[in-house]
């Protein structure tokens, strides 16, 4: 496999988790895409230094952490980050929760099934939030409730989807869904 193909295969397999990591590290949602672009570029430039025996996800998060801080310094501290200690805790949690590319694909498939099993009102909320990109305040206004209630509903929805994914993976591949994995994902 040539270098670009190899990089792309690994990057695409871990892109979602990497975006999630950047999202946790950067407190301003509007800056997360900018940081992610820089991280992707930095990963490609330094891909020669990647040791295939190591986890690509862990290596990428390490690079991302440096880029996040670089960006933070260059942009005159406009990016508000979590503290280094909190960021380190997040990195450890990501490392523990990391799955390989095959599992990611299975989880994606399971997510598709789980989304279809959502009750209509929950499905509508998810659709508005992610398809329409409706803000929390807008959702609260539409549903005649508070933003705290919307946060709560989204939190529960994610938990329900996470449980559903784990159930499906356990049904389809009992040996691959370890209890430890379930415990880490459960929220």
């Amino acid at each position, binding site marked *: 496999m040539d270098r670009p193909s190899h990089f792309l295969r690994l990057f695409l397999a871990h892109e*979602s988790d990497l975006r999630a990591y950047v999202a946790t590290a950067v407190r301003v949602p509007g800056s997360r895409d900018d940081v992610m672009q820089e991280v992707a570029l930095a990963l490609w430039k330094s891909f020669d230094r990647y040791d295939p025996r190591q986890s690509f996800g862990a290596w990428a998060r390490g690079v991302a952490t440096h880029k996040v801080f670089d960006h933070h310094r260059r942009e005159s501290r406009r990016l508000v980050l979590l503290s280094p200690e909190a960021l380190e805790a997040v990195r450890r949690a990501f490392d523990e929760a990391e799955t390989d590319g095959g599992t990611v694909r299975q989880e*994606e498939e399971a997510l598709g099934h789980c989304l279809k099993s959502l009750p209509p009102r929950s499905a509508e909320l998810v659709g*508005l939030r992610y398809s329409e990109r409706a803000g929390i305040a807008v959702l609260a206004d539409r549903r005649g409730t508070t933003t705290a209630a919307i946060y709560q509903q989204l939190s529960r929805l994610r938990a329900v989807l996470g449980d559903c994914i784990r159930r499906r993976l356990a049904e389809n591949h009992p040996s691959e869904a370890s209890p430890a994995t379930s415990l880490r994902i459960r929220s």
Partner: protein
Amino acid sequence: MNDSLLVEKHLADGLTDEETATLEAAMGGDPAVASRLVAAARMDQRLAARLGPGRSELACLAGLKRGRAKAHSIARWRRPLAVAAALVLVLGLAAAVGAWMRSIGSAHSDSMASDPPRATRPFVPARVSARPDRVVDPPRVESETTAMVSLRRFLSRYYLPDLKLETARPLDEALEHLLQRAREVNHLKNPVIERLSAELAAAEEGDGRPETVVALPLKHVSLMDGLTWMAALNRSEVFLKEPGVITFRPWEPAENETLVTEVVRVRRDLLPSEVGPDPFGGTTEAPTVPRLTPIELFQSWGIAFGEHASASYDEATAAMTICHTASTIRAIKELLAMGSARPLVMIMISTKILEFAQARPIKGDLLTDQQFQLWLREMNQTKGVDLLTAPQLTTRSGQRAMAEVTKEVVEPMEREADRSETEVDWQGLRIPIEPILEGEVVKLLGAVEIRLPVNRQAGKLISAEKISAAELVTTATDFEAIIPLGQTAVFSVNESSDGPYFAMAVTVHRADGGGPPVGEPNDAPSPPPESGGQRVGP
């Protein structure tokens, strides 16, 4: 704010410094908090990647089986394409259109009324209205000839009071129902309508019957709108071809028939609201009408919602979020647009009440505008004939209204003994009336009631006598008339009584000025109130 809410807010909107400090402290004290943050962030990213904008194949929660949806779309289009290409409505040839065009302004003497006059008075339309058409032209197809444009205009102003099927039926059956209704209200025996026929050629496959099922929940709809409605449900457009042929031309199949989500603005009265207690009604027994869901509404129109399709309505913004295939969403939008664009069918009813000093029976007659003017002039020059009042009202087709020229009369119940108790009565004229546009005529269902003091001066509505001393005499009759637009029906109100003697003239016109939609797919409440008629004094 607990940890879960902090996590959600961090991902969605960002945290304040204080909230960030709280979250960081929680993560420092309990590693599980960091795990929850990570789990939430991962799920958030996966959902955004799967459902986010720009990912049309995943934009709908249900649209996850792209391959299956594609295959389904091809199968779904094969038969409608074949059938729609073969579906031809023969409306009569150009001769029929020409005959209709020539018939404008020419007289018909056919009698349409078969029942003899009793308490009600059926009227015989005698002439095709020569009144200029006020209907807004529907969109035209460029290649249509002048004759076909005229035909389209005619179909657009030919109104059916209702076009309903209790259950969704195959397209050809629904089409036959539409043609049958058109003939039923063809009081003027218009040759175009008489020769209207549907011809359904055999399809290239199957038994030739289209799979499309059509529901018809329409009221006060033009023939053209009825055809357009069916065409949209059949994913087609109505196209007129010479000589007088209507075809349903199928839309181009969409390239991608996977489920997509679209937000469509709709009329606020599209879904009838649940009725709550009327704060001014003084009653606690408010009727409650179950509200239709958007899916129920669309299904009542004949649009199927499969397992993964959905529709939701946001009352605050009057926005409908529809998740369906692109072609179905287009059909829904066309049906919604058709309902919003259809002109409000408004009927102006002009009446004249004449009083005769002597009995002068007038057998029900129908007059053209010219004939009516001559008749009025003759009455004006006749001694002992007075124009009592001439109220006029405008109301929508199918809406009952009241023309009223009255004065309140307060009568003591015990004139001599106790004047504290009184009852309220009225004198004057009341004409409750309901016009229904049928084809090219207006069907009027109404009554006229005249209550006047006995000892008043003839020809005066409100006399100068002391009302409290007057005795009121009531003259009333019901009537039913079928009057071509622009014409006038005249008849005696009380030809068999001993007097006073009255005659009534009723003229009907279209008074459309655009406005809210006419279509009421689910019998949504009408904007004008029950007494929506416009009262005009004598």
